[in-house]
């Protein structure tokens, strides 16, 4: 007797967001990225079309970051040159996008002006053809000013910019609206707050297909399970036609995974944990692969070795598509 397999019928798909614009579309990118659009749970090809593969955006900062040596040593000198660094990510690591963090703008640090930052952005845009994700320095006031300037300077490029949060979403959403970019909407590990933010932003007039959800993940070993479940619920919600949850999701994998002690502590210090290098690579890799299983659409990563592994994992799972 044949087994009647269960194939869920969903009412809706995950919304599709397009990032980047080619010359024909008014930008300068050589490729555009589509994320979301899936009609099934992650990688369940038998159930519905997995429209777009998950992409990896590699993290680049405008000033050299305070990362661990395992990652820094893989990049060497280019860390001082965001454009060269971005180029390396795209050419050698095959990053689908570049995630540019303008930490140099921080008033507590170099306090770079929006103009200086815009220049870095321009340099990176010139160096690579892939679309960019650009965020500020996590100082809400500065970011409002900074991102408005960046949005303007990159008008037409259709980038993904951030970060809109519940108590500070207006100016960035407005900037994205005026200059035609997409927005990252971030909410702390709560599916309802995530929805609220999406409603608030969309009520300002930004279309839903210009929002990407950042559910604020926890890294492996440090609360990843909360993100795992929230993302799984969001994906189920999207498929069940909850419009305010149907945006693709972006995950700050590199940041969270590399904050963990396990990604930084030397073997001499913790002999029981084994070799640091592989451990650090896997810490970031598994943070990513676990979240792939619950619907991550954009992975923001750092470690080139982990990027390779995750790319391979995505390829494997996209087989039989």
């Amino acid at each position, binding site marked *: 007797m044949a087994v009647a397999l269960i194939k869920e019928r969903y009412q809706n798909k995950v919304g599709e967001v397009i990032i980047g614009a080619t010359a024909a579309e008014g930008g300068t990118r050589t490729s555009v990225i589509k994320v979301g659009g899936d009609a099934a749970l992650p990688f369940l090809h*038998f159930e519905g079309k997995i429209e777009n593969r998950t992409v990896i955006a590699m993290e680049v900062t405008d000033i050299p970051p305070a990362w661990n040596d395992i990652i820094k040593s893989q990049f060497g000198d280019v860390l001082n040159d965001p454009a060269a660094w971005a180029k390396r990510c795209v050419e050698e690591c095959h990053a689908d996008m570049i995630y540019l963090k303008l930490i140099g703008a921080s008033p507590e640090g170099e306090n770079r002006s929006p103009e200086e930052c815009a220049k870095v952005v321009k340099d990176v845009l010139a160096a690579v053809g892939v679309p960019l994700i650009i965020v500020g320095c996590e100082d809400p006031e500065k970011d409002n000013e900074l991102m408005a300037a960046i949005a303007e300077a990159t008008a037409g490029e259709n980038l993904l910019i951030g970060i809109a949060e519940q108590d500070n979403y207006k100016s960035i959403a407005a900037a994205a609206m005026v200059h035609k970019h997409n927005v990252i909407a971030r909410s*702390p590990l709560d599916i309802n707050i995530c929805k609220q933010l999406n409603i608030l932003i969309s009520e300002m007039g930004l279309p839903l297909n210009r929002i990407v959800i950042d559910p604020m993940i926890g890294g492996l070993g440090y609360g990843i399970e*909360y993100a795992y479940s929230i993302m799984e619920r969001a994906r189920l919600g999207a498929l069940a036609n909850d419009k305010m949850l149907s945006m693709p999701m972006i995950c700050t994998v590199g940041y969270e995974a590399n904050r963990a002690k*396990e990604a930084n502590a030397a073997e001499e210090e913790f002999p029981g944990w084994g070799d640091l290098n592989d451990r650090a690579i896997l810490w970031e*890799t*598994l943070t990513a*692969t*676990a979240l792939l*299983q619950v619907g991550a659409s954009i992975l923001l990563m750092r470690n080139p070795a982990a990027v390779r592994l*995750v790319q391979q994992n995505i390829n494997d799972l996209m087989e039989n598509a």
Partner: protein
Amino acid sequence: MALTGLEIYKQLPKKNCGECGTPTCLAFAMALASGKGALDACPYVTDEARENLDSASAPPIKSIKFGNGSVLGDETVLFRHDKTFYHPTTLLVEISDALSDDDIQAKLDEINGLEFDRVGLHYSIDGVAILETSGDPDRFAKVVAQIAAGTDRSLLLLSENVEALKAALPSVAARKPLIGSATEANYESVVNLAKEHSVPVIIKAEGIEALNTLVESAQKLGYKEFVLDPGTRNPSQTLANLTHLRRLAIKKKYRPFGYPVIAFTSKAEPLAEIAEASVYVSKYASAVVLKASAKAHVLPLMALRQNLYTDPQKPIQVEPILHSVGEVNENSPVYVTTNFSLTYYSVEGEVEASKIPSYILPIDTDGTSVLTAYAAGKYEPEKIADALEKSGVAEKVNHRNLIIPGYVAVISGKLQEVSGWKVIVGPRDSSGIITFTRAM
């Protein structure tokens, strides 16, 4: 589908006598519906009700126990947010009998060393999968004996050759290993062997259809201690198969698939293999057989497993340890709040916006808001003082000023007394923090 509390309630005696340990029949029914408690606790259920309820409450996936405390299956949900995943994926590392004795010993030593301590938790690898690739039953028996002598972890004996299993099993049967694999070609003898020694057995076929047929035939042998292996070894197909099996078992209570499932990795390169295994740990494998055995490779996978099998029914809480916002220094203010995420994040957001690098100490209130915690006696001065001391913040700042939420102004005197810190009552709502810091 499982019965709801109300549906179960309809079958209960409705005496509300409380003898089952819950105050009312409906409360008891709800406990049963959520898989807590046993029908036997009620002395008054009728036989008819018992019959109806027993079949409805039979677990959708059989629990299979083997080896040294390994439990597979007995899961009740598809998504961990629905309830919880109960039995963490059993992780086994394989050793082939084709290796030299020395290599086997070396690998075994490495496996035995897979014990980890992190964040106050202890992880250890569950067992060893002994693979017959030598083609020689005697060799297999010898290696099994050698490994059994060298470890007390759970064992999996893996060969499709009945003779090899027959040679190896008797000497370790008392350890109750899992054996496999019963295939279409050999299932009668393998299942009967398992039955004879009362050990669980893997039923393996290529794909769902074939597996269905094979399980149905195997069940006819009068034995049901099964673990399923849907064959295919590529990640995408394995994910699909694991999902199909779990869904049919849970959503349809489809009996032939009401058994735990084992997955085997296909990648040879250890890092890629761990990445592959993470898929199966996430999605529905009750056991995974690995080749990798280096600490640095196994630890991340074990951390993932531990994370995913925690109880999701707890409110989201932040860790009740000292948090810092910005580049803190010895003058940074110290705020106390609770570990309820909603509370913590509203405070953190405002503190951040105040642009003054600060410490925030969330007290463990079981994830409740300030006033709910205070109401329930979970925000007492003694407890706060204790947490303050344990946090070590006293060594980090050169002042002794503590800012508490305005809603609990009543505790300030007592807190000052028991902690020795000067207690400053902050605003009631966190939105007042910015103005408050400016006025300070």
